[in-house]
């Protein structure tokens, strides 16, 4: 196409240089990639997906079925960018790839941001309707966000030559924009697409923040920003899109949408040499008129209607444009490259084909209100047989449609509609009254003649006439599908792929549906089109992820002692969001060696562990004991102040949910501890029962998990270390018994000390405010030096507890294990507690349930290994259980483990087998308590 020096909204003095398919190309500031290529004579963009036919630019908007390119270089390369949206700039690199893009191979160097915002009214689209709506709502005092996907506001006003109030319409747009920007509570967002509408006014927008400048000029700015807006009302003023007509070789580069051709002229000053117009409605006459006004030759307007007599047709005739009524384009001819050279026109009542030479054919099949955002929240549409388009069928609460999106087609009518809708939306948010609001501007648009119901030129070659150009679906393809018995457009879509392309078939779907209606002899209103889904325009994964990458993806929780662990070479284990020291390898040690050393230290000397991640819940009130009795399987109310008791909780289905030690701090106060991963869930669970089932109980719950850091000193020498740390504390066995707690000053810090043991060894757990945790830890470490105190991690903790047969929630249990299965009969008290009833269901009473046992395998087994009865078996073989824990024991000098085994407790002493891939291992079933069965060691 040719550039007119004095037309368009581009800066004719500012050239930009970029690369297309490796070639240097120039454009003007204000060009898009599409317009710059057209201006540079690039007509053929590439070839089609299935049939390898040459394809070119079809429109001037994002519904264009071909205008996609691979843009950017290296890790910034982005597939299938909308060429009409990509702003030409120096250094832009683009490549022809219309249908299948290439993903970069490295991480994204650019930044994608998110921003939350709140509004009374969000207006999507800044054409006459959206601008008027935003202004009306803003003047009523509402908080308004106006978003439009173009760099400049004005919508179709920028692609037309129109007057509003006898002024050029784009000047009116500028004036409104200025007025809006002057409002403190209005946010104007150009280059911003409203992509998703959710419930209760959750609206997502994607702003192209720095995409239009070369990477080296972005300076840390986001490439794009996803706005997450909560609005009370949404005004959808997204305009309408033009659809095509179907005839042979309608996919040739040069066959364009009439509105697009007009847009290229007014936005970019681009014109064809000789342009034929083919239409079923009045709007395309504007293209003919405007082109002639720009000095372009328009040999004829081919109009399918028998008698086009509207004011626009009259004006065209007055300009000397031939109007060929009751005629249609039946095919096109191409040049050597395959681009358009001429069109073949026929009279609809018969007669010979006539070839008219042209380089552009401007087609208009009609206009489809763009209602995607209304559809996102379940808004319906109905076919309007007069306007020949879908129009909204009622609205969803909080979502309004305005202007062409609502089926209003006159420019002034759109502005008036927008104004009225803006007032209604503002009123709905308590701002002003629509009835008493400022008067709506008049709508004096010239009347248009009715459009014709026309899709396919009769007699055209079905094999080369395209319904969905992006997916290469032809009339023949649609016919084949319909011939196979398909009776529904959703099946038609899935059989032919109509409407499933990158642009979601926005120019194609209505035509496909109308062809189906024809074929079934059904009213199109019944047949409809395949549905629309979010997003309104595709959104990159990166934009949806935003800044939730790396350490911002998910919190990494650490205790106040963590820096010490890091400094001392700990290897960490993820437990929920927490990082816990897994083991502390010394030089040259692997994990097994480190764990053996740590365990030995605890059994023979003294070890120390950071137990701060355990959940802690302060339970206060006169009924605190009663409350805990109802939740734990055991009895807590009989506990004496200053004493602690171990407890297990079940879900209502009787399965073990969590466990921990409960300490009675005072007559009316308990501290319940939970597993690290279970902390939040247990508190929620407790609050649930307290608030909804037993609101009459005098109990108050407070999470104090992070108030307290806890250091455990464990091993035969723990008492000496404790004594050194807290000289005033009487640590002798008689004074400080197992499951007792004391307030004490430890290393100068006020602390709570409890004798709790998860290893079977003598142990003291010291708790201090979290901010004192590291100080305490360092003091313990220092005080323990004479005794060779050894920090240990979760792995050693697991080995030590397993030697004692203690289970771990989530390791020995998986939501299918009851306290009885774990052998905790002694803890299931004879009183009501949540889940108790479930333990009486027939399946729970079966005598072949899986039970927790100890195992002594011939070699160390992988955790998760399955167990079978016989060494000789054939697959499939019944499994009688599995290994839940498996370690090498320093204390036992051999591998051992825990397992859930069918009828396991009755089978102690028997041998079963673990069939591993390299061979089957014999496993002896033993009592789960393998070390210090008498429990002598816990008192030191």
């Amino acid at each position, binding site marked *: 196409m040719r550039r007119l020096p004095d037309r368009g909204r581009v800066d004719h003095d500012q050239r930009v240089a970029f690369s297309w398919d490796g070639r240097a190309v120039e454009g003007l500031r204000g060009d898009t990639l599409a317009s710059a290529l057209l201006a540079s004579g690039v007509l053929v963009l590439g070839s089609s997906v299935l049939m390898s036919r040459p394809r070119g630019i079809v429109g001037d908007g994002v519904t264009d079925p071909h205008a996609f390119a691979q843009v950017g270089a290296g890790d910034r390369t982005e597939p299938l960018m909308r060429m009409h949206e990509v702003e030409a700039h120096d250094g832009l690199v683009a490549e022809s790839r219309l249908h299948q893009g290439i993903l970069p191979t490295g991480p994204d160097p650019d930044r994608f941001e998110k921003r939350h915002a709140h509004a009374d009214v969000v207006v999507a689209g800044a054409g006459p309707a959206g601008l008027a709506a935003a202004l009306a709502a803003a003047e009523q005092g509402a908080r308004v966000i106006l978003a439009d996907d173009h760099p400049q506001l004005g919508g179709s006003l920028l692609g037309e030559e129109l007057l509003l109030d006898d002024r050029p319409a784009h000047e009116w747009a500028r004036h409104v924009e200025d007025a809006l920007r002057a409002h403190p509570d209005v946010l104007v967002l150009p280059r911003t697409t409203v992509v998703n509408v959710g419930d*209760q006014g959750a609206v997502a927008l994607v702003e192209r923040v720095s995409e239009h400048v070369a990477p080296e000029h972005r300076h840390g700015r986001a490439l794009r920003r996803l706005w997450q807006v909560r609005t009370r009302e949404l005004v959808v003023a997204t305009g309408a899109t033009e659809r095509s007509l179907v005839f042979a070789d309608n996919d040739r580069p040069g066959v364009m949408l009439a509105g697009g051709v007009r847009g290229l002229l007014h936005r970019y000053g681009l014109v064809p040499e000789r342009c034929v117009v083919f239409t079923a409605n009045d709007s395309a006459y504007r293209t003919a008129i405007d082109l002639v006004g720009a000095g372009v030759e328009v040999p004829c307007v081919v109009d399918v209607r028998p008698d086009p007599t509207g004011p626009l047709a009259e004006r065209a005739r007055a300009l000397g444009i031939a109007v060929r009524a009751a005629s249609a384009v039946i095919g096109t001819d191409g040049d050597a490259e395959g681009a358009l050279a001429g069109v073949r026109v026929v009279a609809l009542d018969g007669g010979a084909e006539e070839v008219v030479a042209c380089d552009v054919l401007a087609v208009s099949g009609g206009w489809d209100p763009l209602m995607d955002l209304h559809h996102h929240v379940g808004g319906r549409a109905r076919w309007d047989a007069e306007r020949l388009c879908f129009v909204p069928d009622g609205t969803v609460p909080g979502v309004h449609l305005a202007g062409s999106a609502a089926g209003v087609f006159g420019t002034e009518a759109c502005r008036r509609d927008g104004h009225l809708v803006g007032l209604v939306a503002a009123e709905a948010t308590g701002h002003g009254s629509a009835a008493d609001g400022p008067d709506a501007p008049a709508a004096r648009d010239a009347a248009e003649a009715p459009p014709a119901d026309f899709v396919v030129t009769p007699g055209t070659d079905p094999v080369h006439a395209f319904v969905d150009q992006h997916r290469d679906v032809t009339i023949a393809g649609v016919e084949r599908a319909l011939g196979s018995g398909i009776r529904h457009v959703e099946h038609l879509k899935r059989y032919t792929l109509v409407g499933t392309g990158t642009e979601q078939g926005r120019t194609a779907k209505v035509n496909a549906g109308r062809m189906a209606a024809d074929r079934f002899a059904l009213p199109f209103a019944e047949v409809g089109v395949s549905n629309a889904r979010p997003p309104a325009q595709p959104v990159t994964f990166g934009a949806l992820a935003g800044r939730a990458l790396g350490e911002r993806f998910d919190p990494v929780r650490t205790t106040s002692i963590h820096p010490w662990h890091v400094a001392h070479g700990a290897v960490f284990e993820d437990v929920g969001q927490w990082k816990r020291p897994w083991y502390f390898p010394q030089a040259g040690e692997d994990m097994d060696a480190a764990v053996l050393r740590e365990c030995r230290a605890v059994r023979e000397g003294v070890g120390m562990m950071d137990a701060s991640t355990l959940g802690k819940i302060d339970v206060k009130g006169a009924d605190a004991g009663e409350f805990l009795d109802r939740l734990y399987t055991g009895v807590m109310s009989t506990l004496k102040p200053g004493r602690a008791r171990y407890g297990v909780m079940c879900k209502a289905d009787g399965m073990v949910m969590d466990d921990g030690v409960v300490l009675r701090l005072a007559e009316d106060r308990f501290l319940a501890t939970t597993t690290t991963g279970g902390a939040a869930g247990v508190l929620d669970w407790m609050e649930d029962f307290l608030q909804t*089932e037993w609101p009459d109980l005098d109990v108050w719950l407070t999470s104090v998990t992070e108030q307290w850091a806890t250091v455990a000193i464990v091993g035969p020498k723990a008492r000496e270390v404790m004594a050194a740390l807290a000289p005033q504390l009487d640590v002798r066995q008689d004074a400080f018994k197992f499951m007792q707690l004391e307030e004490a000053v430890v290393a100068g810090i006020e602390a709570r000390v409890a004798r709790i043991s998860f290893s079977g060894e003598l142990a003291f757990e010291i708790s201090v405010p979290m901010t004192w945790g590291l100080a305490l830890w360092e003091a313990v470490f220092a005080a323990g030096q004479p005794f060779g105190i050894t920090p240990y991690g979760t792995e050693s903790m697991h080995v030590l507890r397993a030697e004692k047969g203690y289970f771990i929630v989530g390791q020995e249990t998986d939501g299918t294990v009851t306290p009885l299965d774990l052998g905790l009969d002694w803890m299931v008290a004879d009183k009501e507690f949540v889940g108790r009833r479930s333990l009486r269901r*027939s399946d729970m009473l079966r005598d072949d349930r899986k039970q927790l046992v100890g195992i002594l395998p011939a070699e160390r087994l992988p955790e998760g290994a399955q167990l079978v009865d016989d060494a000789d078996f054939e697959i499939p073989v019944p499994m009688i259980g599995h290994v839940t824990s498996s370690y090498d024991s320093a204390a036992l000098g051999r591998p051992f483990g825990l397992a859930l085994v069918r009828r396991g407790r009755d089978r102690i002493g028997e041998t079963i087998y673990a069939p591993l891939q390299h061979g089957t291992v014999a496993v002896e079933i033993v009592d789960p308590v393998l070390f210090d069965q008498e429990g002598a060691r816990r008192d030191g």
Partner: protein
Amino acid sequence: MFQIRCPYCGPRDEPEFKYGGQAHVAYPADPEALSDEEWARFLFFRDNSKGRYAERWNHAAGCRRWFNVVRDTGTHELVGSYRVGEQPEAAR
């Protein structure tokens, strides 16, 4: 993403809340008196109706209160919220 009105804190975004399923299902007063079938109904069976539905939410990231909401499961319309102990008619 819903915006849910906490009866105590006001309207907040859905991620602040935890869903609790059907409202007004009390833990049986005397579980031991129930047959296996009756107990199973309490454990596992909840209304799954289309239309207005009374359900529980917990304002987990806010005031930690459990409360009830009437919501249309067909359209996602949130009719209103009300406190524990109140009946669905109180939803606003």
